[in-house]
């Protein structure tokens, strides 16, 4: 979770998100150094993920669904330092925030403009802490941040043509438990239950000749609980496929999912 001071300072969530990301990567670097002296063997993997991220969000006293189609490059280190699995990712996100109304602008704008491209990056950590003959139990945590590119829309029908410019960003931090079934040879189903916090902003700037205004909506999750069901499928010794389905529960339940390919080297 972000500290209150970090949360209070942000104008968007960009600066703290980037800082947190850098800190976590630096931390993992330290772990890597420690790992070099460790005897445990670390497996390195590169992956590609397509993810449909759907999550209920709240803004003002209203709610809608944040939808984001993300294409990610991932690097995964299994058993890093003999201690945990680390996953770092970055890629392109297409976030759709349709349904948000900017009522404080001189001319109220109702956003139905569809997806806005941006960069998305983050990392995740898994740690197995208890193992039986068929089950692994563990803890997980992950963090993701999206920074949208500016997108301009023409406002038609006014005496002077106007324009509206959007600037979204959001971040999410999750922590929870997982259980993985290890009784099958090539397939490992897993279930993950997490508490997940989302925050972000959606800034809209309006300009019609010399009539100007801007408004920033604070976005937050519509519920904390997420449940993910997935499978680790070994297609070969080096290739692994991970499909997963995810539901965010709360006042605005949303279903999403994704699929990842990993190549071990």
């Amino acid at each position, binding site marked *: 979770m972000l500290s209150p001071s970090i949360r209070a300072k942000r104008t968007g969530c960009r600066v703290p998100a980037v800082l947190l990301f850098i800190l976590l990567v630096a931390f993992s670097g330290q772990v890597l150094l420690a790992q070099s002296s460790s005897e445990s063997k670390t497996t390195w993997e590169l992956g590609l993920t397509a993810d*449909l991220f*759907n999550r209920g969000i709240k803004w003002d006293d209203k709610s809608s*669904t944040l*939808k984001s189609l993300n294409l990610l490059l991932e690097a995964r280190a299994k058993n890093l330092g003999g201690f945990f699995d680390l996953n770092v990712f970055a890629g392109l996100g297409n976030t*759709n925030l*349709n*349904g948000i*109304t900017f*009522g*404080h602008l*001189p*001319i*109220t*704008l*109702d*956003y*139905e*403009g*569809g997806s806005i491209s941006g960069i998305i990056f983050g990392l995740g950590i898994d740690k197995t802490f208890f193992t039986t003959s068929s089950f692994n139990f563990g803890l997980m945590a992950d963090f993701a941040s999206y920074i949208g590119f500016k997108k301009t*829309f*023409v*406002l038609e*029908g*006014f*005496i*002077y043509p*106007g324009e*509206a410019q959007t600037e979204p960003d959001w971040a999410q931090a999750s922590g929870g438990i997982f259980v993985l079934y290890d009784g*099958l*040879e*090539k*397939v490992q189903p897993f279930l993950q239950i997490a508490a997940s916090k989302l925050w972000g902003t959606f800034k809209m700037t309006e300009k*019609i*000749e*010399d*009539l100007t*205004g801007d408004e920033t909506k604070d976005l937050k999750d519509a519920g904390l609980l997420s449940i993910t069901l997935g*499978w680790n*499928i070994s297609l070969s010794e080096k290739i692994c*496929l991970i*499909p997963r*389905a995810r539901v965010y529960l709360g006042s605005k339940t*949303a*279903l*999403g*999912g994704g*699929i990842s390919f990993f190549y071990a080297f």
Partner: protein
Amino acid sequence: MKNMNKFFRKKVSILLIGLICLAAFILGLGSLELSAQKKKQEKPTTFLNKKSRVKFGEEISSLSQANLLSKIKIINQPETKRLVKNYSSEKLIVKFKPEISAQSTENILRAYQPKSFRLIPRINVYVMQVAEGTTVEETLAALRSNPDVLYAEPDYKLRLCTTPNDQLFRYQYALYNPGGVLQIPGSPTGKARADIKITGTWDYGKGDPNVLIAVLDTGVDYTHPDLANKVISTGRDFVNNDYDAFDDHWHGTHVAGIIAAETNNSEGIAGVAWNCRILPGKVISADGEGDYSWLIDALIWAADYTSGQAKVQVINMSLGGTEPSQALEEALKYAYNKGIVLVAAAGNHSAPEDPTFVLYPAAYDQYCLAVGASDYNDQIADFSNYGTQLDVAAPGVWVLSTYPVSQTEPGYLPYAFASGTSMAAPHVAGFAALIKSAKPWLTPADIVKIIKYTPDDVNSTEYPGKDDYAGYGRINTERAVIPYKITKK
């Protein structure tokens, strides 16, 4: 066999996983589609407020009954009075340089032996009655040669911006124009939706009772059944110098009804700003004339007026004079700087000798929205004054509104049809009040820009864009108030 079993298990697992992923993906897309459809359904398919429309329809149908129609007055005004002299023969306005103390200014004034003088607060302007046996012109000349005087000017005359009429319309077409032949004697044909598009706007707001619109005019009949609950106080009479701005003409009552007649009360007419309230200020006498000094006083008074949470946010001036005045401009600036939207009629020229330019105060472009008149076909009225200062147009031909009860002849209803830029300006004042009610954080400059940039350019064929005749166009309240939907192109 073992290998076969492993192979089979692997295949089934992959197939199962694929199916689940596909189902999850389809579900995700489905929820996206359903959500989009739901949004479409949630949006109103019509701009009409059903309840208002029904109510409006009932009013219309009741008005359409021949026996009621015959009971609505058609104001057969006398010709606009021609002003031989366009300023007071007794009073003038003077302001001294800021470095001169109040004591000194009054001593200087006394040296001219005035019958009386008084200070208009806030802008430090004196209104002075000239000495017995002295003319205004002589006193003005003397004052202007005094090095302590910043400016001295005549106390110009105001007049009402109405034009004669002799016809009756059955609709408040200004608020909702159904188009087609209007079922009244003469059967004029109206253009559908040549109106201010207010019915859809009411779905998004009907005004705030704490938003007051000062009507600086002939006063208001605050006992009128359609206004009694809408007038916040008996106001201020600057003509007779008392606190009873009762209308002894008819003009102010008509203007007030257009702005904020009580609506949805099973009788009478609908006002533009349903829930906003009126503050009457009388600056025009019973004979239809007023002095600039009364208007200046009234502007300052209205700008300072508060009652509980209620505050003047809009001032309507359906009047004008032909002469500029620094004192008037200062008073406008004072009100504007207090966050008030100022709306004024552009003026009417109903005879060849009438000026066609935008009258004052409307011509003070920096502070005032100057309003011209359009008709039921979105044509600019031929009497509507024009010029570069003209900002927008609004319906001002055959507008139905309230009429003083005390002046209503037996057998008539207290309503009347009237025409003029005087009738156009209150549509804009009511519109400004609706915007201010919905978005109290907006400045007068923002509200003025919203009103100017959202009209329908009704004369775009001849004069595309802003022009001297319709300004930016006939106001369109929907475009300003209903949320603009940003869609994917």
